[in-house]
């Protein structure tokens, strides 16, 4: 395995970088979209179920199919990373919109009332009170989304898109364990690191959750 790495470090390194960027970009976009969507689902309660169900169905579309279709729908190039980014963004939104909504809904209504009674206007209340209190739930969802994105990107290799999945197919075509193993390990390590970072951020920004 070491030997494979020394011979191919350029390819592996490139795959790792591509993987990272293909996985994390959708997290950023997805988070940015899910926040307002989740909020709307709480603000307008009738929106909650349609929204959750729609994304539930989107979530159940196999990633491979989504990767293939997006060029047709979006008019992007077949090998464009945009396809993967958009597909994973959809999954991220599906996961996060729900957690954002659930997190906001779980905020103690008494606390929200207290804030209202103190003269908070809606937007400021959302930013100052509701979002911070929902943060532990939202970040837990973010962890799930990040980790699953990192493992999902590799499916893109079935249609020739870069990332660590390239190591899987490469090894698989030669019936050769090393690249697959390296790919799996790197993918898991990457997910672990990303997860750890979120946990650390969470600890830093939600000190009150540790006050029992």
């Amino acid at each position, binding site marked *: 395995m070491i030997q494979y790495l020394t011979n191919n470090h350029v390819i592996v390194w490139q795959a790792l970088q591509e993987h990272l960027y293909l996985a994390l970009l959708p997290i950023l976009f997805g988070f940015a979209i899910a926040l307002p969507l989740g909020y709307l689902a709480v603000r307008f309660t009738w929106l909650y179920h349609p929204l959750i169900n729609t994304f539930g169905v989107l979530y159940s579309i196999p990633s491979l199919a989504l990767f293939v279709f997006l060029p047709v729908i979006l008019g992007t190039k077949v090998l464009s990373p945009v396809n993967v980014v958009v597909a994973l963004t959809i999954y991220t939104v599906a996961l996060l919109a729900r957690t954002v909504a659930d997190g906001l809904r779980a905020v103690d209504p008494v606390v929200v009332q207290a804030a209202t009674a103190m003269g908070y206007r809606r937007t400021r209340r959302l930013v100052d009170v509701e979002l*911070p209190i929902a943060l532990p739930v939202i970040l837990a969802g973010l962890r799930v989304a990040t980790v699953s994105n990192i493992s999902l990107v590799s499916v893109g290799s079935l249609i020739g898109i870069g990332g660590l999945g390239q190591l899987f197919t490469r090894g698989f075509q030669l019936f050769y364990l090393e690249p697959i193993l390296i790919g799996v390990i790197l993918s898991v390590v990457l997910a672990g690191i990303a997860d750890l970072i979120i946990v650390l951020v969470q600890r830093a920004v939600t*000190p009150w959750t540790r006050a029992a």
Partner: protein
Amino acid sequence: MITFEDVVKVYPGGTTAVDHLNLELPTGKITVLVGPSGCGKTTSLRMINRMVTPTSGRILVDGADVSQQNEARLRRSIGYVIQHAGLFPHRTVLDNVATVPVLLGQTRRAAREAALGLLERVGLSAEFAKRYPAQLSGGQQQRVGVARALAADPPIMLMDEPFSAVDPVVRAQLQAEFLRLQQDLGKTIAMVTHDIDEAIKLGDHVAVFRTGGRLAQFATPRELLAEPADDFVASFVGRDRGLRSLSFDSAAELPVRPVDGIDLDDSGRPLGLPGVFTKDDSLRVVTDLVISSPGGIAVRVGPDGAADGLVSHHDLADYLASRRS
């Protein structure tokens, strides 16, 4: 002064929570709203700071209709304390208290400094300032809730069962502190409770509501005990009304006999009695003493603890009779 002018609140479901309420809560006084569960106490309170909109009628604060005022600004000028405190779990105690001043544009630093003083005022030392609400006991949380409502020094405070989440001992403690605080601050306070004892103890005035959101009686605690408006109020006020109304009567004027036939120690303090009273006590204390003491008498002591007078059950009966006529 807060004025309810013919206020009605019917909730969308069709429940009439408040039914043609006319009420004046005097400036600088504590008015307690009391009544059975669901009688519209909370609803009435929340119409004052526009958390609930009346179906009809008007609410005036110092003559100005609240519905004409900017919602957020109105609320910032009214302190609101709710059951279980409703503290922000994600902010330290200090930042909870500093919330409204910061909203009003004070710098965080100035607001925190002021908050520290307020915490002390409600009996919480500086060591609590950096804690989160989850690290406080129920009683401590209530104190923070009160401090938070006081932070912007609002002329008006609304308090919805502020002491109900804590056990009876802590509760009594909070009530006493609260009265002391109000003596200093002289806010206009509207407080909700469903505990008639609390109402009588804290209220300058008591508004008793009946189910269906109608006002049954508005009176001072003393009037309420002495002359309940009807059977509903009488039964709500409960037993021992006579004895409890004596709480408002000082024993200062009660004539006493010379001390005689009582064992005293060297400094003149009485020995072997279940209790004694002073001029500052109420007639309620004296009554209980004459009933429970073995000799049917109550001994009065001076500031130094030495017995300076004696009252028999008959003396008390005479005094009460003389006060009536």
